[in-house]
C-alpha cells in the first residue's frame, strides 16, 4: 500500500462544445480507488457528455485525463476498456433472442464462448450477488435481470472503474437495494464507481463523494452523506425545489374514462397480454397506475389512447362514448389527450421543428383550414404559447425537436397536450429521465388539469411521484390491474406486495394459457 494514494481518475479542465451548447466547461473531478463518486445534475447539465468522454465515446475539446496518475488519451471505448474502465449504459444493448452467455460473449473483445464462459459468468454473478443463469434467453429476463447482464459483462473484464449511468431508473425498490449491495461490495474490493444520477436520496444513501454539475459547470463538490437533499438540490438546479400545490378536489369535472373487461393479446411476441382490466377515471381526479415497467403498462396505454384499437367498442368509453374501435385521432376528437412514454419518435418527431411537432396532435385547434391547408401563423402561435406557458428552453418554435434536452422536450409535449384543453388525459411515465425541476412542473401541470375537472390517468414507476399527485392508485402486474385504492388508504409497502401479484387469483385463466411463451 502506498503512503499517499494516487487518484484512480483525475479530470482537469475538461471542456466540450457542441454547435449549440457548451456541454462541459472546465470540469475538474477526482475519483479515488474504491470510492463511489456521484456525478449529480439535471438532464442537460452535461453528465452524460462527461462520462462519454471518460469512456472514449466523445473527445474533449480541451482538458486532460489522468489514469492512476498518468496522462492518457482515451479515443475509443476499446481503449477505455483496455485501461480498465467499464460502463453500464442507461439503455441496454442486449439481443433479446440470444442467451445471457451469448450476449456477453458478443461484447467481450476476445470472444470465447462455451462452457468456460458459462462458468466465469456463474462465478462472477455469484460473487457479487447478481444471480444469473447464462443459458437463459434475454427476452425472458426482467429489466433488473437485464441490467445484471450488463453489469456482469463489465465485471468480467475486471474493471478498476465502473461507470453507471442512471442505473436505477428501471428498477423496483427491492432491486435497487440489491444493486447498491453489489456496488458497495465492488467498492470494498477497490473498484472505483462513477455513479451518474439526478436522484438525491440514492446518492445520499450510496456515494462517498459527489460532484454537482449545472449547465456544464461544476457547482460543488461535497460529501453527500453530510448534506441535506435541499442543499444538493440547490446546487443542482440553482434554486429551491418547487413543491406541487395539491388542493383538495372541489369541482367534479365532466371528463370520464372507463375501461370495462379489457383483454388484449400482445402484438409483440415479447409483449404482455392484458387480461380483464376494469378501471374508471372520473373528472377531477388523478388515478395512478403503479408497477414495474414491462407488466403491460405500455400495452394498456396503447389500447386506451387508440394507438391499438380493440375489437369491442364498449371496452373503452371516453366521455360516455364507446371508443374501443376508434384510432388515436378519433379519440383525440373526443377530448382524450395523451403523453406517451417515449419522447423521441413517439411523442415527437426528432427531425421536425417544434412547430411541426405541434401539428402532430394539435391540428384540431384551428391550426388547419377546412380545405386541409396548414395555417402557419396559428401553428407558430400555438408553439410559442406552449414554449412560454411551460417554460421550454429552446431557440424558438423552429428549433428541431432533437435539439432540446429531454426535460425540455417533455415539457413541450405535455404543454402541447394540455393546451388542447383535454377532458381526459393519459400520461405514461411523464417524468422518466426528466430532471427534477421539469418533473415538478410536469406534475403540477397534471394537478392543474385535475383541478380543472379533467380525468387524469398517470402511469408511473416512481411511487414517490404517485403518492405526490394521485388521488387513487392501482397496481399493474403481468397484464392485470389490481383494484383501485384511495391513496390515503394505502402505502408503499402494500403497493409493493401488489406488484408481487398478491391480488392475482391462483388459477391460470384460459386467455393467458392460450399464448404460452417459448
Amino acid at each position: 500500500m502506498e503512503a499517499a494514494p494516487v487518484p484512480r481518475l483525475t479530470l482537469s479542465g475538461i471542456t466540450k462544445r457542441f454547435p449549440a451548447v457548451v456541454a462541459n466547461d472546465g470540469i475538474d473531478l477526482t475519483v479515488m480507488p474504491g470510492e463511489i463518486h456521484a456525478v449529480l445534475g439535471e438532464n442537460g447539465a452535461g453528465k452524460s457528455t462527461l462520462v462519454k468522454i471518460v469512456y472514449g465515446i466523445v473527445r474533449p475539446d480541451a482538458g486532460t485525463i489522468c489514469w492512476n496518475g498518468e496522462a492518457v488519451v482515451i479515443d475509443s471505448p476499446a481503449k477505455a476498456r483496455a485501461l480498465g474502465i467499464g460502463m453500464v449504459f442507461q439503455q441496454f444493448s442486449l439481443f433479446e433472442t440470444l442467451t445471457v452467455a451469448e450476449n456477453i460473449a458478443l461484447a467481450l473483445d476476445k470472444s470465447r464462448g462455451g462452457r468456460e464462459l458459462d462458468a466465469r459468468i456463474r462465478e462472477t454473478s455469484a460473487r457479487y450477488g447478481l444471480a444469473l443463469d447464462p443459458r437463459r434467453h434475454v427476452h425472458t429476463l426482467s429489466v433488473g435481470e437485464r441490467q445484471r447482464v450488463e453489469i456482469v459483462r463489465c465485471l468480467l473484464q475486471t474493471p478498476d472503474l465502473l461507470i453507471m449511468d442512471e442505473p436505477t431508473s428501471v428498477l423496483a425498490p427491492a432491486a435497487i437495494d440489491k444493486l447498491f449491495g453489489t456496488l458497495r461490495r465492488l467498492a470494498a474490493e477497490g473498484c472505483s464507481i462513477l455513479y451518474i444520477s439526478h436522484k438525491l436520496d440514492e446518492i445520499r444513501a450510496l456515494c462517498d463523494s459527489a460532484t454537482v454539475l449545472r449547465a456544464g459547470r461544476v457547482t460543488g463538490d461535497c460529501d453527500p452523506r453530510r448534506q441535506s437533499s435541499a442543499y444538493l438540490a440547490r446546487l443542482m438546479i440553482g434554486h429551491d425545489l418547487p413543491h406541487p400545490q395539491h388542493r383538495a378536489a372541489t369541482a367534479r369535472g365532466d371528463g370520464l374514462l372507463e375501461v370495462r373487461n379489457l383483454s388484449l393479446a400482445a402484438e409483440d411476441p415479447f409483449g404482455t397480454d392484458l387480461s380483464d382490466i376494469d378501471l374508471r377515471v372520473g373528472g377531477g381526479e388523478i388515478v395512478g397506475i403503479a408497477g414495474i415497467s414491462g407488466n403491460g403498462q405500455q400495452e394498456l396505454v396503447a389500447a386506451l389512447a387508440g394507438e391499438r384499437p380493440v375489437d369491442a367498442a364498449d371496452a373503452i368509453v371516453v366521455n360516455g362514448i364507446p371508443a374501443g374501435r376508434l384510432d388515436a385521432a378519433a379519440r383525440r376528437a373526443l377530448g382524450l389527450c395523451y403523453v406517451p412514454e417515449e419522447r423521441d419518435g413517439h411523442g415527437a418527431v426528432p427531425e421536425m421543428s417544434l412547430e411541426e411537432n405541434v401539428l402532430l396532435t394539435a391540428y384540431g385547434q384551428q391550426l388547419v383550414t377546412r380545405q386541409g391547408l396548414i395555417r402557419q401563423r396559428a401553428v407558430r402561435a400555438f408553439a410559442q404559447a406552449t414554449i412560454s406557458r411551460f417554460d421550454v428552453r429552446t431557440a424558438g418554435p423552429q428549433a428541431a425537436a432533437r435539439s432540446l434536452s429531454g426535460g425540455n422536450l417533455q415539457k413541450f409535449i405535455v404543454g402541447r397536450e394540455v393546451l388542447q384543453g383535454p377532458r381526459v388525459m393519459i400520461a405514461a411515465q411523464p417524468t422518466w429521465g426528466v430532471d427534477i425541476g421539469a418533473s415538478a412542473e410536469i406534475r403540477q401541470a397534471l394537478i392543474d388539469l385535475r383541478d380543472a375537472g379533467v380525468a387524469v390517468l398517470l402511469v408511473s414507476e416512481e411511487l414517490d411521484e404517485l403518492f405526490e399527485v394521485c388521488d387513487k392508485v392501482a397496481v399493474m402486474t403481468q397484464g392485470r390491474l389490481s383494484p383501485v385504492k384511495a391513496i390515503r388508504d394505502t402505502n408503499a409497502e402494500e403497493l409493493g406486495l401488489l406488484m408481487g401479484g398478491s391480488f392475482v387469483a391462483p388459477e391460470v385463466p384460459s386467455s393467458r394459457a392460450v399464448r404460452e411463451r417459448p
Partner: protein
Amino acid sequence: MMVALEARPEPSRLMAWASPLLAAAATVVAGFVLFSLLGKNPVDAFVVFFIEPVATRYGVGELLLKASPLMLCALGLAIGYRANVWNIGAEGQLTIGAICGGGLALWLPQLNGALLLPLMIAAGAAGGIAWAAIPAWLRTRFNANEILTSLMLVYIALLALSYLVQGPWRDPEGFNFPQSSLFGDNALLPLLLPGTRLNVGFLLAVAVIAAGWLFTARTLAGFRMRVAGLAPRAARYAGISAERTVWIGMLVGGATAGIAGVGEVAGPIGQLLPSISPGYGFAAIIVAFVGRLHPLGIALASLLMSLLYLGGEAAQIGLELPSAITRLFQGMLLFFLLAADVSIGYRLRFRRSPGAAGAAAESPAR
C-alpha cells in the same frame, strides 16, 4: 496518415444539398475519363454530350419536352418515398396511362380536342392509379412488399401494350408494323414553342410540381405523409393511418405516371408503339433522389436527367458510341449520388497516426 469515416453529431444540411451537385460533377469527371479511354477527345465529347444538344432553340425545346415526363413521374414517386412507400413501378403505370389515354384517342377519333384531350389525361391518370392500386392493395391486405409487386407489374404492363399494338389495336394500314394508327390532331397536345416539339404537357408538369410543393409543404395530409416516413410510432400516436399512407403514396405516383404516359403518346409520339418510354419511369427514381424528394429539386434534376438522354442520343450520332451510353451516365449519377450521400451523415477525418490527434477540436457539423 489514416483516413477515417466518422459519424457527424447531426446530419449536415449543407451536404444534403451539395451532394447532388457533387454527384453531377463526379459524373462529368468520370465521363471525361470514359471518353478518353474510348479514344475520343474528352473536351470535344463533352461539347457533343452536354453543350450541343441545348445550343439551339429546338434543343432547348427537346430538353424541356423530355424533362416533363421525368418531372411528373419523379414528383409522384417522391410523395410516396417521403412516407416510406417504395413505388418502383412508375414505368408500368406510365405505360398503362398511355394505353388508357391512347385507347380513348383511337376509340373517339372524331371528338373535339378541347374535350378529348382532358378526357385522355383523366383516363391516363385513372389507368396509372388502377395499376398502382394493385401493389397498394397487396401491401395493405397481405403485407406484400410493394417494391417487388410494383416492379413486377411493369413487365405485365409492357407486355399488355405489346399485345395491343401487335393485335387488336394494330393499324390496318400500317404494313403489319406493330403500331396503332396515328392520332388525329384533335388528340395531340398543342405545341408551345414554334419550331420545337415542346407542347403544353410541359405546363402540366410544372403545374403538378407546384401542386406537389403545396401538398408536401402546406397541407396537413402532406405533413402526415412526412411523419409516416420519419417516425412510424409518432404517426400511430397522431392517429395517422398506415394504410391510408400506403394508398396515398402509391396512387399519387400512379396518377402522375399515368399522365406522363398520355403526355408521350399525345405529344412527340402521336400513336401507340410497342415502346413509348425510354425508361422514364425508372430514371424518375434517380431524379427523385437527386432532387432530394423536394419538388423544386426534382424539377432541376429532371432537366439534368433530360440532358443525359439528349447527350446520349447525340453521342450515338456524333461520337459513334452505343446507345447504352445513356444508361451508363444515369447509373454513374445514381452511383455517385449514393456515395456522396454518405457525407450527409459522416465526414472524413485525416489523422497522422492513431491517437496523436488527442484532444483536437472537432469542427462543428455545419
